[in-house]
Structures are given as C-alpha cells and as structure tokens.
C-alpha cells in the first residue's frame, strides 16, 4: 500500500556528510475538516519518522497535521561505515511502513 | 475615438475643478473594456461574434440567459456569473453606443 520514495547515496567516503531524501505517500488528513454531511473527518496522519544507521537512531521527527500530504523529509548524516540505513514511518490507525537501503563506505 | 478626443479636449478647456475632469473622461463601465479581448469590432472574422451593432436589450438578454444556463455556452456562462444585472445593463448600454 504505502509507497515511499527514498534517495540515499549507494556509496560514500568515510566521514562524508550525505543527504537523505524521503517521501511517503500519505494524504495526511488534518482532522480539521468536515464532510458534506457536516461530520468531522477524523485525523489520519503520519506522526513519527525514524531513521537508523546499522540499528542506531540517527534522526527522528514528530509530524503534525501542518505537514503537507505525502510527507517529504530531507536530513543529513555522516557516512561512518558500510551497512544499512532503515527508515520507518508510523502514524494514526496503525500506519506503519519502512524502507531499507544499503550504503558502501570506503 | 476622434469624438472622444474632441470631447475630452473641450471639457478640459472648460475645466473648473480637478474633480470635474474625471467625469469628462468617457470611461467604459466596469468590466466592459475586458470584453474587447475576444469580441472584435465588425470586419474581423473570428468565431466570436461582435458586440457592436447589438442593442442593449439584446446584450442584456443574452448575458442573463448565459448566466442562468438557459443558453448553453462554452465560456460565457462562467463570465456572466461575475456580473450583476446593473453591471450587465451598463456594459450593454455602453456597447450599444459604440459604432
């Protein structure tokens, strides 16, 4: 279901600061809207984004309804060693998705 | 145009107060100047009909039926909805005076 776009460099030099771009498809329903019948549309957003590098947390974000649909988050990290970068999104109504990418550090 | 120029000139000649001058300019009513972007004077051959030579009553009736949807249209229904009856009447009267 969930569709993610991730841009992590496959290779980097040791100590290099790399940019990680992420986008998760999600409508981010704000909870501030009403349907045609006047009933409030319940909030349905991604609330948490976590990035780990070989299991160690390197970045975390708490998201609010003011984040645009299809949350886009870009951050940086230092390429320390070869391994796996894992990205996890969690949200309302049990939303959970993750993406992995391997990076080779020379 | 020549008539309007002469008119403005004469009124300026007879000027009294600054405020009087605004009245001497014969400005088209609100919205009317935009119409000429699509509606050409007679002699220009396009798919869009000319407004010159129509009576004010004809233009008013047409605009009202565009606005109500009684007259099917492609774009004029959307434009007619931006004007009140008095605005349409003013535009129609102004076009009826154009030669």
């Amino acid at each position: 279901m969930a569709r993610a776009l991730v841009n992590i460099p496959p290779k980097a030099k040791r100590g290099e600061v790399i940019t990680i771009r992420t986008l998760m498809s999600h409508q981010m329903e704000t909870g501030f809207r009403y349907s045609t019948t006047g009933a409030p549309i319940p909030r349905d957003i991604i609330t948490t984004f976590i990035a780990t590098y070989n299991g160690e947390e390197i970045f975390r974000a708490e998201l609010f309804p003011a984040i645009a649909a299809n949350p886009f988050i870009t951050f940086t990290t230092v390429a320390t060693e070869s391994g796996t970068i894992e990205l996890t999104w969690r949200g309302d109504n049990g939303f959970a998705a993750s993406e992995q990418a391997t990076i080779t550090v020379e | 145009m020549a008539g309007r120029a002469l008119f403005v000139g004469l009124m300026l000649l007879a000027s009294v107060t600054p405020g009087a001058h605004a009245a001497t300019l014969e400005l088209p009513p609100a919205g009317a100047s935009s119409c000429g972007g699509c509606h050409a004077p007679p002699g220009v051959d396009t798919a869009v009909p000319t407004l010159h030579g129509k009576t004010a009553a004809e233009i008013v009736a047409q605009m009202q039926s565009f606005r109500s949807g009684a007259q099917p249209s492609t774009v004029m229904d959307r434009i007619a909805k931006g004007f009140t009856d008095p605005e349409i009447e003013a535009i129609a009267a102004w076009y009826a005076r154009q030669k």
Partner: protein
Amino acid sequence: MMKHAISRRGVIAGLGAVTLGAPFVSAQAAPRVVVIGGGFGGATAAREMKALLPGADVVLVTNERTFTACPFSNLVIVGERELTAQEFGYRSIEKAGVRVAYSAAKSVDGSARVLTLEDGTTLPFDRLIASPGIDINWEGLPGYGMAAAEKMPHAWKAGTQTTLLRRQLEAMDDGGLVVMAVPANPYRCPPGPYERASLIAHYLKTRKPKSKLLVLDAKDMFSKQRLFLSAWAALFPDHLEWVGLSKGGKVLSVEPESLTFVTEFGRHTAAVANVIPPQRAAAIAAAAGIADATGWCPIDPATFESRLVPGIHVLGDASIAGAMPKSAFSANAQAKVCAAAVATLLTGGTPPEPRLINTCYSLVTPDYGISVAGVYHPAGGVIAEIKGSGGVSRADAPPDVRAAEALYAKGWFTTVTREVFG
C-alpha cells in the same frame, strides 16, 4: 505634479496646448505617460492611454522592433504554425499617436520621475506604466544558464528559442525521450506547460509514435489539471507521462552536456530537453525599485499603482495580480483598466472600481480546446475572483464543444493582436 519644463510640446502636434491644461498642471503642460514594455500589456496600455487622453504625450519603450507573441507559440514548436504568424510591429501604435522608443529601459528615478534608456535617452514622466514581463531567473535552477538554454531550450520567450525547440523535435529519431521540466508557481502562463506537453504528445503520436514525453513537475496541482489529465489519459496514454511533485517530479538541477535532469529521487536523460525555468519580473522592475523580495511587483488592485514607488503602475506578468494569472489576456485587460485609472488620476479624478476578466485557452490538440475563465475585482487590498464566477470548461463536454473552444482560442488571438497591434 509637473516638475519639468515641457520640451516635447512639438510632439503633440495637432492639438492646441490650451486644450491640454489641467488645472493642477502648469497651463501648457501635456501629461506625460511613459510605458515600459512592448508586449500585450504595455502596447495595450500605450494605445489605450492615447485613446483616453489624446492630449497626453505617450511614449512606449520597447527594445524590440518586432514583438513575438507567446500565445499559440506552442503550435509553432510542433510545426502546426509558423513563427511569422506570431510577429507584430508597432507601426499602427505609432500611427495612433504613441511615440515608440526602441531601446531598453535601464533605470528609473522614482522621485524625480525620470526613466533612462540604454541608449542614454531620458524620459521624464508624470505617470509611468511598467509592463516589462518576465526574465528567466538564471540562478534559479543549478546547471541551467544562457549557454545551457542553447542545448536545453526554454522556449518560454517566443522567438529563436521557439524555433530551436522545434528543430530539435524535428531532428529527433523516432523512439526518443522528450523531457520537460516545469517549475513551481509563480511563472508566466500557468497552463502553458501543459498545453505544450499536450501538443508535443500529439506531435509524437502522429509523427514519431515510438517516442514519449516525460513531464517532470515541481507541483502536484496545476491549471485545468482535471481536464488535461483526462484528455491525456484518453488521447496520449502511450506518449505522455506526467510526474508531479509527490511522485518525485521536482527537478533539482540539470546537466546540459548530457541533457540530464536530476530530480529529488532520480535522473532522466533526454533526447530532446525542454526546461521551463523559474522566473521573476524583468530586471527593470528591480532597477526601478518596484519589485519586492519575492522578485515580483506588489500593486494596488484598483489602479495597478506600485505599492513601493508612487507614480509607477505595474501590470501584466511582472505584477502580483492576486487571483489573476500571468496571461496575455490578463495583461490586455489590466492594461485597459490601468490606462483608465492613470487617465483619471491625471485629470484629477478618482479611479472607479474596476472589473477584470481573464480567459485562458489551452489547446490539447489543434482542434481540442479547453479554458479557464474568471471575473475579478479589488477586494481586501488584492485582486480577487468574484465568488461564483469563473471556472474551467465542463469535464463532460462533447467533441464539438472542444472544437468550438479551439476556434474561440484562435478568435481571441486574432482579436487581441488586432486590437493591440493592428
């Protein structure tokens, strides 16, 4: 206020100076209006100004002797029209009594009310109307610049760029990938990229059916989107792919040597590359002090007078015109309203509240037209759409309605170019 000795009385031949005197002006002075920009906005304003105030000394400043119109230039790109059909001169405008200065506007002294041209001419004015249009923001897209535009044409100012893109499409082997980059708002002609995408897809489908167009867009939403998307799905399912912002469509940089587009999440290499770059008000706007930090010109919505420099009015693509899009139709409509406001101010009156109309036609194929229209008025300090008016063509319209809109599009171009340049 007239601060300058009148040196151009000779220009206003045929009109007795006495008829020109307004009470707040020295007795012999003709109001001097200088208009920057020979496009739809400027040329309309100059002509309308002269028609409303025949006694005024109206000077139109344009750096080209031939104006090349952008509307319908997408048909030129795909070989359905010749560039000469887009070209217009200023002879009729001169005949109407407007003096035309063929030079570029260089600087404006807003307090002394003098415009200086590249050729050194100085033009004092009582009111300046600026309709300078856009400049490409050459710093706005890394990798893109004037040299890159020879390899990856923008074709967003009609002329040699238009024919360059056309030649590249004609020279492309069947099976090639055409890639177009579309910027975020604001830019000239909001639906323009999508009309161009449609017509290129139509060209590929009919002439080079193994080829495809990839549109990389920095937006998720665009003008007439639903109409375009449904037309593309029906007409060009194999020839046009649109990638919006949230699908990774935003182009971060280009590599002109290899015709490569670098997006947030990938790379695309083209056989033919069309980069529609970020834009801003033409350079004279910043030089005149009428552009703000946004790169565009804030205005009073009733008179188009600059919020930054009194006595200068700004219209057309360079202005921040609220809900009105940056279109030739808008510029033409705004110019007439602006000229009326300037004429009223010069004769001591209070400009009336205007109504403005815009209609943007787009061609999906040469015989398939769609449109968005709006009626506008000043509200709350900006130009706002009148509630309940306007909108886009019906989604379920039959082919004869689409064909009629294509004809109306052509009718509009014929009429407006005749009104302005004919």
